């Protein structure tokens, strides 16, 4: 899939009200593959933090044990981060403000994850 196609997919995410930005990141090396509207966020930071979160969540899953994580939803007092596995090692990530339609965002990211390949 082309970079242009990935950026078009991310463009569908950032039109949801309250979404601050979206990115496609490779969690094995913590690098950004594509990003959209991450104006006030450093894409490299987002990728590195998501990679670390996925790694930590995978360790919790192994300890229980369960299957590996495929979605992570971090809800903070000042916003939300949603990350969903697309095509390993790629994860789709969105960062949203408080009050964003998180349920709609989850559904959209799930749909788009299947289109990344």
């Amino acid at each position, binding site marked *: 899939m082309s970079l242009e196609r990935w950026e078009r997919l991310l463009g569908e995410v950032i039109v949801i009200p309250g979404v601050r930005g979206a990115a496609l990141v490779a969690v094995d090396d913590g690098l950004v593959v594509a990003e959209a509207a991450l104006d006030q*966020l450093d894409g490299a930071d987002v990728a590195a*933090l998501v990679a670390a*979160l996925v790694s930590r969540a995978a360790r919790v899953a192994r*300890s229980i044990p*369960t299957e590996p994580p495929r979605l992570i*939803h*971090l*809800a903070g007092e000042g916003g939300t981060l949603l990350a969903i596995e697309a095509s390993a090692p790629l994860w789709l990530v969105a*960062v949203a403000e408080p009050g964003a339609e998180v349920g709609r965002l989850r559904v959209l990211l799930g749909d788009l994850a299947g289109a990344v390949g």
Partner: protein
Amino acid sequence: MSDSSHASLTPAGAPSFLDLGERLRQHGQLDAAATVTMNGLRQWPTLAAGHDLRGRIEADRGDDHAAAEAWGAALACEPGHLGALKGLAFLAFRGHDFAAAERHLEVAVARAPHDATLLGALDRVRSRRPAAPADEPIRLDDPTSGLLLGDADGMRLSGGVGPEASAEAADAAAAETAGLLREATRSARLLGLGGVKHLVVECADARLAVLPVAPGAALLAVRSGSTPVGRLLATAQRAAGVATQWLAGLQ
């Protein structure tokens, strides 16, 4: 309130007004009992057992508002005070607020998991409640409950990760959950998301929720992959509330 088991709760070495007030209460001399208790509380205003006794007297008088206030004061003096929790559960039960009664008893059972009278009371309350599948019981002390409480260092305090998981798995999960919460806290700070409210991790066969519980502790809820996320969070938030009170009682 006629529960004579409260008499045995008078702590050894406690001020004598507790014993006298309780005896008067049990003989139905409620005004005299109240006078003795109030005089005692003037001398020992932070004695939880004194406020607990005042709660029982007020409940016997039928003044639920005053009783609730007294038991609230007991909990302020001693978080997790069993007598106060029982009393508040009794008031809620008498007012047909079975959900509130259950919450108070759940906290009490978390503090005293082998207290037969508490377990019996919890069973009675639950039998009176309408079935509410989303409002499942919180059993922090039960390793099979899929509710795990760990401290900031990743040491397991209570609970476990499910009926088929060993204690070793629960210990490992507590250690890894502390690390995950630390990472989530760092990510939230660096991304401007503020303090962590919760973290949900979805796997093919399970859904996990991690909630911070003061001070620095973490609650992990483990449910099947088919559990709705909203229900998972509702359960986890109730458990975090119980855990917060349980931890306060330890301090």
